[in-house]
């Protein structure tokens, strides 16, 4: 008896129908012609990277111990003793970095191609939420290494949360599990990082893709109309991208392996406290203006970004003006993001 028959006996589904659905939904998913260019087809990159994060993250939990006494030591153990531990950790750490870069690239493309336009506003908003969740992932994950830099970055980061109007104080105490960054904070961050965020992210990714499928990929103007099937062209592109990313992550992990730093010491404040680089724009901006003004501005920016698909037509009614407005706003945001990031990088 063939294996297929054996299974079908136990799961009497209409196999032919299953093949049809599969063909319709995946194999023959209509992909617009402009996506034959590498330039436009990398929206799946963050998803591929998230896949890597999921696998390496699960492997890391085999050894990681979320307690102030053991966190640093277990990260050291993973990095120095466990076979291929440095590689798994390297991919996880670099994966988080690349995931943020990939999201920025994806958002840049989506923004400038104005793919957020009606009727895709909701998917843009889900995308913004995914970006924020990824940053939360990165923030909570970074704190788990429990070295001096991450400990104090966590301290400063949670201090900033305190300044958020209305819910700040509550959120601050909830995240820290008390007044100080302590064992409570570590276990909370760990639970958030491995238990709370992944299902939400997976759910939102599913929703993001579902909406994309229902509405179809947005087709920018100025390209020949028409479609081709997901399989094999786009499918292999994703496979190539996956292999390339794995190679890139491995190379980066070997050339610039993430370090251990000094063990966290709540008694000694290091002279230069910095968050991870993806928070540099916000961190530098907050240093430039009074804290409350800064927090308010950042909150306003986030609201603006989230509701941009509705704000844009409200500001500019005429189509060409709307396009120019998008280009100007997008360019200004990206230039200032890069400038603030560089400023904070070179600043001691």
């Amino acid at each position, binding site marked *: 008896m063939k294996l297929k028959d054996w299974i079908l006996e136990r799961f009497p589904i209409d196999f032919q129908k299953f093949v049809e659905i599969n063909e319709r939904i995946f194999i023959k998913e209509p992909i617009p012609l402009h996506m034959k260019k590498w330039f436009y087809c990398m929206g799946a990159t963050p998803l591929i990277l998230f896949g890597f994060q999921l696998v390496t993250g699960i492997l890391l939990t085999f050894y990681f111990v979320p307690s102030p006494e053991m966190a640093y030591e277990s990260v050291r153990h993973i990095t120095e003793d466990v076979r291929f531990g440095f590689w798994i950790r390297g991919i996880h750490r670099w994966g988080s970095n690349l995931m943020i870069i990939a999201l920025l690239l994806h958002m840049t493309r989506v923004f400038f191609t104005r793919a957020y336009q009606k009727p895709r506003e909701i998917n843009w908003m889900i995308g913004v939420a995914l970006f924020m969740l990824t940053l939360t992932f990165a923030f909570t994950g970074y704190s788990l290494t429990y070295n001096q830099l991450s400990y104090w970055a966590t301290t400063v980061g949670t201090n900033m949360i305190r300044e958020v109007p209305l819910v700040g104080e509550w959120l601050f105490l909830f995240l820290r599990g008390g007044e100080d960054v302590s064992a409570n904070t570590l276990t909370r961050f760990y639970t958030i990082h491995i238990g709370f965020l992944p299902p939400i992210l997976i759910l939102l990714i599913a929703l993001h893709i579902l909406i994309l499928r229902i509405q179809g990929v947005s087709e920018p103007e100025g390209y020949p109309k028409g479609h081709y099937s997901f399989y094999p062209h786009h499918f292999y592109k994703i496979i190539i991208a996956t292999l390339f990313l794995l190679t890139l992550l491995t190379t980066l992990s070997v050339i610039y392996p993430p370090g251990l730093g000094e063990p966290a010491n709540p008694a000694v404040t290091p002279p230069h406290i910095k968050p991870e680089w993806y928070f540099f724009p916000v961190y530098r901006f907050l240093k430039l203006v009074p804290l409350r003004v800064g927090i308010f501005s950042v909150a306003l920016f986030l609201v603006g970004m989230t509701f941009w698909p509705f704000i844009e037509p409200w500001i500019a009614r005429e189509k060409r003006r709307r396009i120019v407005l998008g280009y100007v706003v997008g360019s200004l945001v990206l230039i200032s993001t*890069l400038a603030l990031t560089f400023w904070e990088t070179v600043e001691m």
Partner: protein
Amino acid sequence: MDTVKAQQWLIGIFSVLLIVSLLIVAGVEMKKSRSFKPEIDVNETTAKCINCHEKKGVAVKLIDEWKESQHAVQGIGCLECHEAKEGDFDAFRCPESEFLIGKHPNPNDCAKCHEDQVKEFANSKHAVAQVMMALKGPDRNVFEPTLSTKHGCEQCHNIGNYWPDGAIGECDACHSKHRFSIAQARRPETCGECHIGPDHPHIEIYLESKHGNLYSTFASEWDWNYDPGQPVPFNAPTCATCHMSATSTGQKSTHNVSERLSWESQAPFSVRTQKYWGGLTWQEKQKNMLAVCYQCHSKSFADRYILTADLVNLQYNEIWKATIDWMKRLRKRGVIATTEFAFAGQNITAWPKEGYDEEVEQEAYRNWHHEGRRFRHGAMMMGADYTQWHGIWELQENLVKIIEYGAEHGVPEARAWRNSKDPNKFVKLYPLYDIPGSTWGPSALAFRGNMPMDRLKNYWEVVYQNVKTAYEKGLLTDEQWQLYTKLYENREKEIGRVYELPPIHEEYLQNLRIDLKELYPQQKLQLRKFE
């Protein structure tokens, strides 16, 4: 340009920019995550000093030391300590810049940031090290040429330097410039720079002790840079642990080394310390020191150890008194020509104004300044050899030499003492203290044999009375007296004679007899020598 082209350019440019620049930033940050070395933020002034000094090759190594310091990490540069005002005693105009430089930063400068530490130091006996040296003592002022003392006693006693601007002390005596390392200051070797040699061999005593042994074995595993103010995370004490560091029993760390010293035991007479030094009574200071001991030792052990060591200090006083008395007798009989040196209303016979021109004067001096300190400090710090052979044995030798000199020159009391065959002649030289038994635990054997307590019927009554007198004079605490009384009342057991000797004892004795009486005659060789 049409909007589609513009769109492609914008996406292209920003994609490349984002990928390249953010990968660089991520790479830079990732590299930093591997670095243990903190970044040093050099301000403009400091950069100017460093560049010029390095170019001219002046004190470059000291700059390297500074780069390794916490000062460098915290952004404390050159001028922060070396800045001077016009008219400062050490001000000089840097020939290469407009800066007015203070050549000798001193505790006044350190106090700008380390106020508490400087204050604590100023109230310690370290602060008066130069005062002690600058007294009109005949050792430095008469006996030795001044030149020799510059790189001799002065080098160490400068820890209490009197600076022209009123500052007192020398922080870099322990925290060498320009690294000012906390780890270095914690090392016993740093204290041992000065606390060494025949007059106060503290580092030798320490290394001889079990504490020092543990240090020699485990020091390489210890974290010498543990956080300031935290209890010491070592498995044995160093000098700083006992005299300065915080304890798990509640002691705060201090730069006042006098806060835990209940004896002034470098002086000719051991005296209980006064409240001025460390702002505490001697009883409080003793408690502080015991709090250090209690971290590792049981109360019963530590209290008994310190009580025994306190009695050694009191015993020394009697030996010193006897030394002076014999010197006085010899002078009265015209045998020696020593003159007394008057200081603070006391005539101190070991300080002759003409210098140490007679051998007996040197012996008397050493009975205080060398052997007397070794005896006392050895007993306080578990240095058995320094209490014994470098201590009491040499104290007795010196005393005998002084009496012998008198006997040879016709002093009747000296001659009578020397000619006496009484086995109690030493016991009768000066009043005795004693404590029943041993701190280290009872022994069935240690106190058997022909001991003074066997030869003198009222031995324990007399020593008990002497200890009681010391207690009544306020030189022992109530608690110490209670402990002594308990041991005294239980002395039969403490001395251990009530316990039976183990059966193997006889076997040991038999074999020792063989070692002594049989082996040597058997193994004695008859060899030829040249006629």
